[in-house]
């Protein structure tokens, strides 16, 4: 692998834990050092070791998942040194905040969540530590008498059940695990869009699904009272809707909530039936946006909810780029960051085109292998548990998906690309230029190869978001993409562009 004019540096540092988001920033700073051609500073999780192997680095055996791996490839030793010095600076700046204050007035940062709750008189806790540690943090929060949002994924289901039972007995709520979004009292926790206040209360077993619903409601001029996340597994047989039940009861008792919308990936039928019986006894009407074959998509569910309240359904915003005038042969390839957006797109595509291969498949026999490739329609969820171990969520760190976009551009069987982009607090501060660049490059690559590669982007966000939805849409349209606020419409539009040459 080593070529002339290439110097590599690889080291493993024990006892130096940093969170994956901070390390992504650090990696970037090292990569931009003069003479450095590639760099990865990451925890030695299985996934990251694979990424490093893919970059051509061989990490010695015996590393622990919490070890820090520093891999730098540079043109010469001076480049490696520049990279290491950039690394030192970047790591030092991570520690800077806590080390500043000195003297009598020095306040030490709390070292446990319980101490932070006590010090800040917190009413809610937000946990985003690596999943295997999240249960410990959640118990600490419940012990201190506050509800907890578990942003972390990779939490064992038996822990989830135990936590939720303990929480219910203390009149507290466990939002999660793998809960990406919540809005409580107007405050967005995790990934959250800036939406107007209003009468719709949301119970969300799906983070990006809830964001999509809130963005559509906002576009229709209707607002949200609260959005209580319950975690992606809450409506599974194992968890049995434990948090959903509590969230329904709390929203039903909330004076600002006039209607409740439950948003979920495909739920377990008996759990859904149970919850529907429970909801029927509440004073507040409950509507269900639960995805599944033959069930309405999220956009349709929102439209029905609007009509039921007598609110006119608008034309959902769409920004048509050059892609809309193109048609192509081949397969649909959907590369998603949002799990529910991926699910919804698959349901739409499967209804029109048949089987869709995926790492989060609609049927087990449609599961993708470890390389995430298949000679057919493919939808990949880059936010899935297995692709985020030791890495930041793709809504923060888009690297893996950007690489895949470039790969699809050179694949002659790829007929149309469907991408999602989710805005809001917590997401990448300005994701559109980077994605637009990747879209533009991919389309140019296809043209060089004598093909067309139309790209459709499902854009979830509001104009109140820090990234502003219309500004992002304009940037993507300039790169040739067609952009739609409704994820279901985006998937349908992509299906339409495939025309008659589908899957041949």
């Amino acid at each position, binding site marked *: 692998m080593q070529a002339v004019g290439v110097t590599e540096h690889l080291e493993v540092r024990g006892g130096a834990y940093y969170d994956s988001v901070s390390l992504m920033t650090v990696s970037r700073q090292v990569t931009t050092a003069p003479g450095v051609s590639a760099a990865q500073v990451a925890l030695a999780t299985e996934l990251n070791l694979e990424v490093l192997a893919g970059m051509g680095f061989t990490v010695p055996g015996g590393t622990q998942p919490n070890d820090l791996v520093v891999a730098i490839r540079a043109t010469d030793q001076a480049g490696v040194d520049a990279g290491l010095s950039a690394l030192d600076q970047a790591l030092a700046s991570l520690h800077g905040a806590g080390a500043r204050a000195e003297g009598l007035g020095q306040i030490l940062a709390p070292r446990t969540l319980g101490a932070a709750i006590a010090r800040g008189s917190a*009413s809610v806790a937000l946990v985003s530590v690596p999943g295997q540690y999240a249960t*410990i943090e959640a118990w600490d929060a419940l012990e201190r008498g506050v509800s907890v949002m578990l942003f972390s994924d990779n939490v064992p289901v038996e822990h989830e059940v135990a936590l939720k039972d303990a929480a219910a007995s203390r009149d507290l709520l466990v939002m999660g695990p793998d809960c990406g979004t919540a809005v409580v009292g107007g405050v967005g926790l995790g990934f959250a869009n800036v939406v107007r206040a209003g009468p719709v209360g949301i119970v969300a077993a799906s983070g990006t699904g809830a964001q999509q619903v809130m963005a559509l409601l906002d576009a229709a001029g209707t607002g949200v009272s609260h959005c209580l996340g319950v975690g992606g597994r809450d409506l599974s047989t194992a968890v049995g809707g434990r948090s959903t039940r509590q969230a329904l009861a709390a929203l039903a008792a909330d004076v600002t909530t006039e209607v409740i919308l439950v948003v979920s990936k495909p739920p377990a039928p008996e759990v859904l039936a149970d919850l529907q019986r429970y909801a029927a006894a509440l004073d507040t009407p409950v509507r269900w946006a639960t995805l599944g074959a033959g069930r309405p998509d999220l956009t349709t569910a929102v439209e029905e909810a609007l009509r039921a309240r007598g609110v006119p359904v608008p034309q959902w915003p769409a920004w048509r780029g050059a892609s809309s005038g193109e048609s192509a042969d081949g397969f649909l390839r959907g590369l998603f960051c949002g799990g529910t957006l991926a699910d919804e797109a698959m349901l739409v595509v499967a209804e029109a085109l048949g089987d869709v291969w995926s790492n989060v498949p609609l049927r087990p026999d449609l599961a993708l292998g470890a390389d995430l490739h298949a000679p057919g329609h493919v939808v990949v969820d880059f936010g899935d548990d297995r692709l985020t171990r030791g890495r930041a969520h793709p809504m923060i760190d888009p690297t893996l998906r950007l690489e895949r976009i470039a790969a699809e551009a050179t694949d002659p069987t790829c007929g149309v690309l469907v991408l999602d982009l989710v805005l809001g607090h917590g997401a990448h501060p300005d994701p559109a230029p980077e994605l637009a660049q990747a879209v533009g490059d991919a389309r140019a690559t296809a043209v060089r190869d004598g093909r067309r590669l139309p790209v459709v982007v499902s854009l979830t966000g509001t104009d109140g978001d820090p990234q502003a939805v219309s500004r992002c849409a304009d940037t993507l349209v300039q790169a040739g993409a067609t952009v739609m606020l409704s994820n279901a419409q985006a998937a349908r539009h992509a299906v339409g562009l495939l025309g008659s040459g589908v899957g041949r």
Partner: protein
Amino acid sequence: MTAPLRGLLSCDPAVATSGVTLLADALRAQAVPVTETQWQPPLDGTLEPLTRVMADRRRSEANALALQRMTSSGAELVDVRPASEALGLERGTFLHAGPPIEWDRASGPLRGALVGAMLFEGMAQTPEAAEAVLARGGVVLEPCHHRGGVGPMAGVVSPSMWVYELRDEVYGHTSWCSLNEGLGRVLRYGAFGPAVIERLHWMSSVLGPLLQQAVRSGGPFDIKALVAQMLQMGDEGHNRNRAGSLLLLRDLLPPLIAADGTAGDIAQVVRFCGANEHFFLNVGMPACKLSTLAAEGIPGSSVVTTMARNGTDFGIRTAGTGDRWFTGPANTPEGLFLGDFGPGDANPDIGDSAITETAGIGGFAMAAAPAIVRFVGGDVRQALRATQTMYEITVGEHTAYQVPILEFRGTPTGIDVAAVARTGILPQINTGMAGRVAGTGQVGAGLVTPPVQCFTAALQALAAAAEG
């Protein structure tokens, strides 16, 4: 009807976060009050037991109860008696500091003190003869803690030695500790020369009986109240006892002066006690022991009730695991040395005096005693930081013991094994240093922490007993 979820939907949220800073930043961008945890993964190998211990449904209440008992227990000096009377200590049995240990594994200072005690009891005529008896197991060795008491440094107690007897009337416990010999070449630091043995005889024949008269006629004396006062006067109760010693002497003087004894003996006792900066330590320690005794035997509690060292092993016990010791090799303190002694002369950590930290003073109250840094090394900032850091591994704050410079915040009290494992922060202990060679005595003073194994082993045991 009260609002569901404890009013979560009807308040302006304040958020505590643990994990990625980006999500805390997102909250700050919305002008939400955020308290961020400086989170690190727990100690190696503790993930599974920690998860079980945190899920123990008894834990929260059990720990609150342990803290409540520790802080509400009393401590009064009620008597001074020979150990044979106070504890029923039999001839041929010697008590020592720390967890159980045999002669073979005993360190220099503990061996030296045992030799001295043999000489003092007349069970051997020469150090060599004493060693021979000890080496063949001719005596019984037992930890002070197994008899409800404590001994500083080597902590060796024999039947003829006199002890302070303290009583906790709230929970009905008794504790005791030997009389302090002063500093320098003394038995508790492993010295056993003729001057040491002679002083021990004087303590049994003159000091003990006169103190007994003083305590019986003037007492009982509220030692817990003295600890509270000394913390406001610059002591931390482990390595700095200056104010406490004067307060105790002030209480003892009137009945002592009126005691039945020669003016010469009384003057010598007063001079001896007044000249000893650590006079108070030997009543402070059993007062702390009474506090932790009150917290013993609470199923589900992960609060530490004993930290003690025998010069070889460091041992801890917890409220939720009964009498079981969890031990690891004792560390050697770092600090300042007397005369021309140096780090190579120091023995590993020794003594029951870490009972002070276990009860929320000593190293945990270092912020109250900034002057101590001249004795143990470091700077004032470190003294403040030591106490502030200990709040991260304790269940709560003492209600009686306060730190003026921290706006009279209660001292950090009730070490939580789970919090130690979660944060990797080890209890901060202020301590004296004994010479590693038997017969040397004190060589310095400094700071030390327990070995981490004590806590990981205790955590495993708590996990095994956890109720989901």
